[in-house]
């Protein structure tokens, strides 16, 4: 069969752009990026605030500028873009079915594919808020796109449910645009986003944050008129008598992101029940040889710099696969989430690929540990490496590096566990 492309990347966000660039640099001749939007850049185009690129460029850039640097590099390298084109289906044989207004329904085939479809936001049905169904309930990301790209303000008085970064960043943005943000409600007893965003987005602009609070009911017939907020206990049960009516015309939901994997699911790619993304090895290869995945499609990252890094690795693997130099995985070493760990990515290591490149295991802790901690990788019975930090928080992804000098131990172990625990418990 004649292949149209060596590497086809689905999604032109930071993960997809980095994958395409690295695939090209690693020797893939024909590289294509497919994007359903009219322009490349992904979610970053609506993230106009600063804070991007501190690791990658040692500069404090707004989202669109971070994306633009990669777009410019991809274009300079001669990578093809197919915009306004949606990938409808992929097969394990790496055939892609596409749909676009101009070309209709058509297919192309690839020697290797990188999935980089990003994530989507959890919506109201997924968190089940009772009450009427008036207009004026949106996800924070939808509002972000309206306000920052399309120039449309969805309301005047807001309540934000969830203290995720997007919600807090929107609280500041709406305030700057002259709206009032009455309150940010968070069901957990801790902030789910970064402390920096709490200070610069809420404190700076006098937006009150109520931890252990949620929305009990949305009030209003045609348009939201108010929400009923309520305190909750440790088990997230309403505390009677703490109800309070907050008048507002808009409720924004910032209650989490889920990897976007409709395509992967339909193709039969193995997904993790915890991350919602494909199960991958250290090359970010899925259970289907030649199909790789990178960025928020694998698990939700909190820093875009790490998304670009993951894109690099996946793109590199894809180029090697396309050129026939990446051997098919024979068996694998399972990486388990151990004590206090919600998940680890990659979930598997390919022993053949344990050579001279260090491997980074990324993980999230289950609940905050606000004291000195160890991050430890071990076999069933023996420690392989551990490093310390001053805390572990669910909002911040943690990585532990495995260097080539440890690979002997890793191979001997046959199966790995990653633990996080307070030093005082050691």
């Amino acid at each position, binding site marked *: 069969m004649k292949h149209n492309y060596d590497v086809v990347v689905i999604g032109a966000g930071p993960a997809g752009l980095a994958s395409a660039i690295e695939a090209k640099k690693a020797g893939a001749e024909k590289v294509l990026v497919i994007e359903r939007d*009219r*322009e490349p*850049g992904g979610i970053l*185009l609506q993230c*106009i*605030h*600063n804070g991007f690129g501190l690791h990658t460029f040692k500069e*404090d*850039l*707004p*989202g*669109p*500028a971070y*994306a*633009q640097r990669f777009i410019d590099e991809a274009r300079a390298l001669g990578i093809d873009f197919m915009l306004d084109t949606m990938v409808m289906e992929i097969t394990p044989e790496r055939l892609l079915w596409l749909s676009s207004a101009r070309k209709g329904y058509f297919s192309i085939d690839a020697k290797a594919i990188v999935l980089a479809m990003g994530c989507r936001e959890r919506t109201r049905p997924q968190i089940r808020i009772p009450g009427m169904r008036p207009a004026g309930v949106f996800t924070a990301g939808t509002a972000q796109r309206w306000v*920052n*790209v*399309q*120039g449309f303000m969805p309301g005047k008085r807001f309540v934000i449910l969830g203290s995720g970064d997007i919600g807090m960043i929107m609280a500041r943005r709406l305030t*700057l645009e002259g709206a009032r943000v009455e309150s940010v409600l968070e069901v957990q007893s801790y902030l789910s986003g*970064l*402390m*920096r965003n*709490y*200070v*610069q987005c809420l*404190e*700076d602009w006098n937006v009150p944050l109520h931890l252990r609070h949620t929305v009990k009911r949305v009030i209003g017939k045609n348009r939201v008129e108010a929400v009923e907020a309520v305190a909750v206990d440790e088990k997230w049960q309403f505390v009677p008598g703490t109800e309070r009516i907050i008048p507002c015309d808009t409720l924004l939901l910032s209650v989490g992101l889920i990897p976007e994997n409709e395509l992967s699911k339909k193709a039969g790619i193995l997904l993790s029940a915890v991350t919602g993304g494909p199960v991958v090895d250290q090359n970010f290869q899925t259970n289907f040889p030649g199909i790789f995945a990178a960025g928020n499609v694998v698990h939700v990252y909190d820093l875009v710099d790490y998304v670009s890094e993951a894109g690099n690795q996946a793109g590199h693997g894809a180029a090697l696969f396309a050129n026939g130099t990446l051997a098919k995985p024979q068996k694998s070493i399972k990486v388990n989430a151990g004590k206090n760990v919600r998940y680890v990515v990659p979930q598997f290591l390919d022993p053949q690929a344990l050579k001279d490149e260090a491997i980074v295991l990324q993980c999230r802790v289950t609940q905050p540990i606000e004291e000195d901690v160890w991050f430890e990788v071990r076999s069933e019975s023996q420690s392989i490496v551990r490093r310390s930090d*001053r*805390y572990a928080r669910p909002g*911040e992804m943690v990585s532990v590096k495995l260097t080539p000098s440890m690979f002997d131990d890793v191979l001997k172990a046959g199966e790995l566990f990653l633990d996080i625990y307070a030093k005082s418990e050691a």
Partner: protein
Amino acid sequence: MEEKNFICTACPMGCKLIVRLDGNEVVQVLGHRCRRGENYGAQEATTPKRMLATTVRARGGLHPLLPVYTSAEVPKAKMQEILAILRDVDITCPVKMGDVILKDIADTGVDILASRDL
């Protein structure tokens, strides 16, 4: 003597800082775990500064708004003034990333830059 409380944002650790002031003079910073935190506390207590990112109206581009940002941090006290100036800006595309949209905004010595091509 006056005391002010801050959460340090110079790194994700988020130490709780106490800054003791005599008028506008920093006498002591407490609660930091490193030098950067000490500097952050002193600056925050006297002239807090922030990066600002917002949008201005744009004509003839793919979108009706152009995202812009400050080339350096600006005093928090000048935010409203800067926003008011930017509300009246109306630019014509094409624009290149990094183009200076306004020089020395509100006498801060800081420029307003385009965040992307449009």
